[in-house]
C-alpha cells in the first residue's frame, strides 16, 4: 500500500533548523521521507527568525518563518540538541544525539548556517565600548521589539552605517565579501529614515555591491527618495565626545580628504562568517572546509549541495554567504539530490 510505503521510507537527519533545514524538511516530507531536524538552539528559523523585513520586497520575516515551521509539522524536531558522534556502516550512518537518541540514516543534510562576525573584535569601532554603537543584528531586533537603550530616550539627529565590518578584512581573518550587508545597510538606512525623517544618514562604504534582483533600485531610492548620503571610505576610528555623541573619522576618498562627522548612532554591518560550531561538527563527520572557512562543496559550480562524502549534503549558508532565496533554492536542490542518492 502506498501509505505504508510512505511510512516505511527512510529517515533523513537534518542538522540545523534554520530556513535551509526547514525548507529541505518540507520537501523531503513531500517526497515521503521522515526528516529529523536536529537544532542546537531553543527555536527554529535560525537567523531569519531574528530579522524584521527582508529585502528586496520587505517581506515580513516572522510570517515567512512561521509558515515554514508550520509546513514541517510532520517532521521530528529535536531542539537544544546536537550530534555527539557518528559512524558509517556500509551505506548507512549511525548518528548519536546529545539527548540520547540514536538514528540510522542513509543521508545527512548539513544546514548549520553562518555566524555573525563578532563586532567586538573591531575595537576601533567601539562596539561594546560606546553606548551608541550597534550591529545590523541589533537593529533588526529593535525593529521587532522597539526596545534598545542605544536608540530609546534620546534625540537621533545623525546616523551612520559602516559597511564591511569584519568582511573584506584579511586581518580579521575574512577576506570574503559578506554579500548581503550592502543591501542590508541600504534597507536599514531607509527604514531608519522612515523612523527618523529629520535625521541625516550616512553610509560609509568601500564599494557598493548590489548584485541581486532589485538591489540597485534600493540604492537609487535611498539616494533619490530618502536623501541618504553615501561616503566612499572605510571608517578608521570612532570616539565619544563630552556630550556623549560619537566622532567618526574616515577618508572621503572621492575628494581625497580626511572627513569627520558627529553621530548619535552608528550601525555596524557585521558580516556573515563561517559557523565555528558547524566546522567542529563537520570535522567530526570528516568533512573539509574551504579556503574561506565555510564548508567545502564537492565543487563550487555544479555541485554546491554535495560534500566530498557519500550521503552527506549541504544547504544554505554553511557553504558560504547566501540570501534567503538562494538558501531556499539550495534546500530544494539538496532534497532532490538526497532523493536521487537514496534511489540510486
Amino acid at each position, binding site marked *: 500500500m502506498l501509505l505504508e510505503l510512505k511510512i516505511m521510507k527512510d529517515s533523513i537527519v537534518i542538522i540545523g533548523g534554520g530556513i535551509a533545514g526547514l525548507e529541505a524538511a518540507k520537501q523531503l516530507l513531500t517526497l515521503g521521507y521522515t526528516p529529523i531536524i536536529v537544532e542546537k538552539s531553543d527555536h527554529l528559523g535560525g537567523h531569519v527568525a531574528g530579522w524584521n523585513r527582508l529585502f528586496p520586497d520587505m517581506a515580513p520575516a516572522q510570517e515567512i518563518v512561521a509558515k515554514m515551521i508550520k509546513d514541517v509539522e510532520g517532521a521530528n524536531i529535536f531542539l537544544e540538541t546536537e550530534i555527539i558522534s557518528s559512524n558509517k556502516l556500509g551505506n548507512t550512518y549511525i548518528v548519536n544525539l546529545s539527548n540520547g537518541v540514536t538514528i540510522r540514516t542513509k543521508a545527512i543534510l548539513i544546514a548549520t548556517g553562518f555566524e555573525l562576525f563578532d563586532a567586538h573584535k573591531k575595537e576601533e569601532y567601539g562596539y561594546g565600548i560606546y553606548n551608541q554603537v550597534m550591529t545590523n543584528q541589533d537593529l533588526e531586533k529593535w525593529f521587532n521589539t522597539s526596545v534598545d537603550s542605544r536608540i530609546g530616550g534620546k534625540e537621533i539627529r545623525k546616523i551612520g552605517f559602516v559597511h564591511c565590518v569584519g568582511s573584506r578584512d584579511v586581518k580579521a581573518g575574512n577576506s570574503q565579501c559578506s554579500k548581503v550587508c550592502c543591501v542590508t545597510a541600504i534597507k536599514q538606512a531607509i527604514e531608519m529614515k522612515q523612523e527618523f525623517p529629520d535625521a541625516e544618514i*550616512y553610509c560609509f562604504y568601500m564599494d557598493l555591491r548590489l548584485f541581486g534582483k532589485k538591489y540597485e533600485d534600493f*540604492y*537609487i531610492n535611498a*539616494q*533619490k527618495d530618502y*536623501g541618504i*548620503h553615501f561616503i*566612499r571610505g572605510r571608517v578608521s576610528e570612532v570616539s565619544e565626545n563630552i556630550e556623549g555623541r560619537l566622532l567618526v573619522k574616515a577618508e*572621503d576618498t*572621492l*575628494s581625497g*580628504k*580626511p*572627513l*569627520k*562627522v*558627529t553621530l548619535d548612532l552608528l550601525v555596524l554591518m557585521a558580516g556573515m562568517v563561517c559557523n565555528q560550531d558547524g566546522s567542529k561538527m563537520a570535522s567530526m563527520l570528516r568533512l573539509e572546509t574551504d579556503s574561506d572557512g565555510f564548508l567545502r562543496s564537492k565543487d563550487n559550480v555544479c555541485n554546491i549541495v554535495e560534500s566530498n562524502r557519500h550521503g552527506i549534503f549541504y544547504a544554505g549558508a554553511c557553504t558560504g554567504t547566501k540570501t534567503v532565496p538562494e538558501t531556499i533554492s539550495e534546500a530544494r536542490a539538496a532534497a532532490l539530490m538526497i532523493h536521487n542518492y537514496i534511489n540510486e
Partner: protein
Amino acid sequence: MAMNFGFKLCPSSALNLDKIDTSLYDKLVEMEPDARICMACGSCSATCTASQFSGMSVRKVLLDIQRGKEKEAAAMLRNCMLCGKCTMVCPRGINTRHLILSLCRIYDNKEEQK
C-alpha cells in the same frame, strides 16, 4: 618681518560634516532632484571636452556642492561649454546639462541678492 621658523602652518583640509553649509546643495536638489542620484562613476568627466584643459567635471561639481565647497564648484562651472556630451553618457540618466544651468541660475540669484 614675520619670523621664519622654517615651516608654515596650513589650514586643515579635513572635511567636517558638522560644519559644512549645504544650503546650495539643498536648493539644487529642490530644482534638480536627480542631483542626488549621481553615483560618482566619472563618465561625465571622461567625456567632457573641457575636462582635459580645465579639469571640468560634473562629478566633482556635485561632490563639492555636497561638501559645502561653493567657490570651487563655481570656478569649475565657468569652464563648461554647455555642449551636453555629459548628459549623453550619464548612466543614471541625469540631465547634467540642465542641472548645470540650474546651478548657474542659483549662483546668479545669489549674486543679485548681494
